[in-house]
């Protein structure tokens, strides 16, 4: 078991390192000059200014030196200085992260039960029309654009019925509408994966066995099929967290919240490469760690994996 954990930890570290290396290569090793990219073609080219900026950001040093320095810094939580604000990238991210964390957490808190409920109900019902309707829900809610949903919710529940504030940086009331906006597509991911597995599991002979023992359909779904179907849905949830970061770009813009999503948006528009690189690495690290946690949880649920891991 320890060897299994050690191997998975090494793999996770390798993934994060690869994310750092690939973004470094894409941003700094390609022929395009990061300083010119940052200034942008619209601002004319003042060679002296370019050279000054290059020196200021240390871009005149050899690439390998910058790579290793950056890596060493990143390991200590120092991701360098923003091209745009001149402030530390790490502290800017740390400042914005809690707001997005609250948003993503709230969205997941809504999405996971909702997704499970939809899938459970669709697997449980004997009414064909209801099962079809519930089965169509995930596809439908995924095809609704997040920005549109956010605007509709704002119109209805902030401006129409003043139940929730339209702009609220902090506080739980301001979190409701953005979290719901993000939860709708997230629950669709969970429900889709779970329902697909549940449909397969419900056809397994062990479900017949359970019902032959006298178990109700509800019990057969909950106590038997759901446990067998839950693992892929949990893996999906870990990947979902990565998706939530890009989802928050839209939602935070619509609801004017200053979180990681807004940070991504501004780093892209201002071509703030150190900020972008740090955001990519942090997101990768979070998703990798969550996936790892889910993978390590698999043997707890499935005894067959416990033996293989041992």
């Amino acid at each position: 078991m320890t060897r299994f954990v050690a191997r998975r930890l090494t793999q996770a570290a390798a993934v994060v390192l690869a994310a750092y290396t690939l973004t470094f290569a894409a941003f700094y090793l390609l022929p395009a000059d990061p300083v010119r990219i940052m200034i942008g073609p619209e601002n004319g080219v003042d060679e002296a200014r370019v050279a000054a900026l290059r020196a200021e950001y240390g871009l005149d040093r050899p690439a390998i030196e910058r790579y290793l320095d950056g890596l060493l810094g990143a390991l200590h939580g120092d991701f360098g200085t923003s091209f745009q604000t001149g402030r530390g990238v790490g502290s800017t991210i740390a400042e914005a992260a809690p707001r997005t964390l609250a948003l993503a957490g709230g969205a997941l808190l809504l999405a996971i039960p909702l997704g499970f409920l939809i899938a459970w109900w669709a697997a449980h019902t004997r009414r064909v029309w209801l099962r079809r309707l519930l089965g169509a829900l995930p596809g439908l809610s995924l095809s609704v654009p997040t920005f549109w949903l956010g605007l509709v919710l704002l119109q209805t529940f902030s401006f129409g019925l003043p139940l929730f504030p339209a702009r609220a940086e902090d506080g739980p009331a301001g979190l409701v509408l953005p979290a719901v906006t993000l939860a709708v597509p997230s629950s669709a991911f969970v429900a889709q994966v779970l329902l697909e597995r549940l449909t397969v599991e419900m056809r397994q002979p062990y479900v017949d066995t359970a019902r032959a023992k006298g178990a109700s359909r509800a019990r057969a779904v909950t106590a038997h099929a759901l446990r067998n179907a839950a693992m892929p849905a949990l893996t999906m949830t870990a990947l979902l967290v990565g998706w939530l970061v890009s989802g928050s770009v839209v939602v935070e813009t619509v609801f004017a919240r200053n979180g990681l999503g807004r940070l991504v948006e501004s780093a892209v528009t201002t071509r703030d490469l150190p900020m972008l690189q740090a955001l990519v690495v942090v997101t990768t690290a979070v998703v990798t760690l969550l996936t790892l946690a889910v993978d390590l949880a698999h043997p707890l649920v499935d005894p067959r994996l416990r033996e293989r891991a041992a």
Partner: protein
Amino acid sequence: MTPLLAVRGLTVRYGPPGRGRPAVDGADLTIDAGEIVAVVGESGSGKSTLAHALAGLLPATARVTGGVVTFGGERVDGLRERAWRRLRGRRIAFVPQDPGTALNPLMTVRAQLAEALRLTGTPRPGEDALEEALGRVGIPDPAAVLCRYPHQLSGGFRQRVLLGMALAGRPALLIADEPTSALDTTVQKTVLDLVQKVAARDGTSVLLITHDLGVAADRADRVAVMTEGRVVEEGPAEQVLGSPQAAYTRLLLRSAPQPLTGPAPAPGEPLLVVRDLRKVYPGGTVAVESASFTLDRSGTLGLVGASGSGKSTIARVVTGLVEPTSGSVLLDGAPVRAGRVQFVAQNPYASLDPLMSVGRIVAEPLRALRAGTRAERRERVRRLLEDVGLPPEVARRRPSALSGGQRQRVAIARALAPSPDVIVLDEPVSALDTVTQAQILALLRRLQDKHGMAYLLISHDLAVVAAAAGRLAVMRDGRIVESGPTAGVLAAPEAPFTRELLAAIPGGGRGG
């Protein structure tokens, strides 16, 4: 006396009304208290749908569209789910087909058995109640088995646990849907013995669904033969199997594998010589331990053994799919060249690429060996399909459009393509129905007479080997324990294991 279960004109349909033939089409069946009734039929005969309908376990896509079913004097067709739940487990128990998938893999035996006891009226089953339930189905060490997960048990033990769960509520009727078709012959015998014993002890009636006439003949008081959704013949076992009236019953009986007759084949010219073969898999599992045998030119050697005996490993080594750890495999005194030994796998549903056309599948060995031009290959495919009794237009179809028997014919045509010296047949008929099985065995004999290749026939079924192989080798735990001419070995088996295998063949007489 009112029968325990009476089925009159039961009709079950899948899908929208009015489309296609019903899966069960006006079936009649009667089971008296304490009686064992076997329903015999091929896949698609509706026997499994009948079993599920009688347990109230039809899938949502199926509907009972006609007929009357009474159980214990009360009508149960058209019962609502709530009413069914009072019957299931307590009055009607059900054991599904494959013990490998019929237990929840994530729950211990204890949890699953306790659930069965709770649902059938023992609110808090204690340790002794659990152990007693397992003891009743002949599990020697119940305390240890209770802590196990299903994957830690053998197939036979899993089936016993399933049986123990089914009997937990002391039901009046036990419906067993092919309870042993996934088990080895010897294990099958123990499980069926147990069913019979428990039924006699508790006075439980048993509805035994099976494709195996021998099992029905051994175990049932009465036999019902089903085909195309109808019960075409029903009566006492001796009468139905001894003097069958329906044409279909006679066909089934004729198709049961018959031992080869005539003199034993004289030792021929050795073609494939396997010496001291040993195979150890990574992790230390010894699959084959010093196996030696000889396959004669144009001969058939049957390799028999239980699952896990190492016979499939031998098949894979001889085919060249797996490297032996030590020992030699020589064809005509030299290492086997590509294409000289071909392979037909057990499951024709899995061994054909579903995305390839049949023509491509059959031509694939030729393409791999770069034999002939495209036009020559197409012509060869046409002749091969003709050889295995398939019309040429099948070449354009995909495997999914073919029946199991047709698919196995395609797999045989593919193996024939490079004109091999040896074809390894790994359980070639065990996934097929009796009638289809007989047709495929006849086809294999005809092809051998025509082309003269040798067969290495791997099977767990001694009856199949006796029907097809002139010589026989019996494997157990990676070793060959007995070999010789088939008729001689069967007439006077020397190894105790061979005797055990022989005694376990269903149809040999009334078991118990």
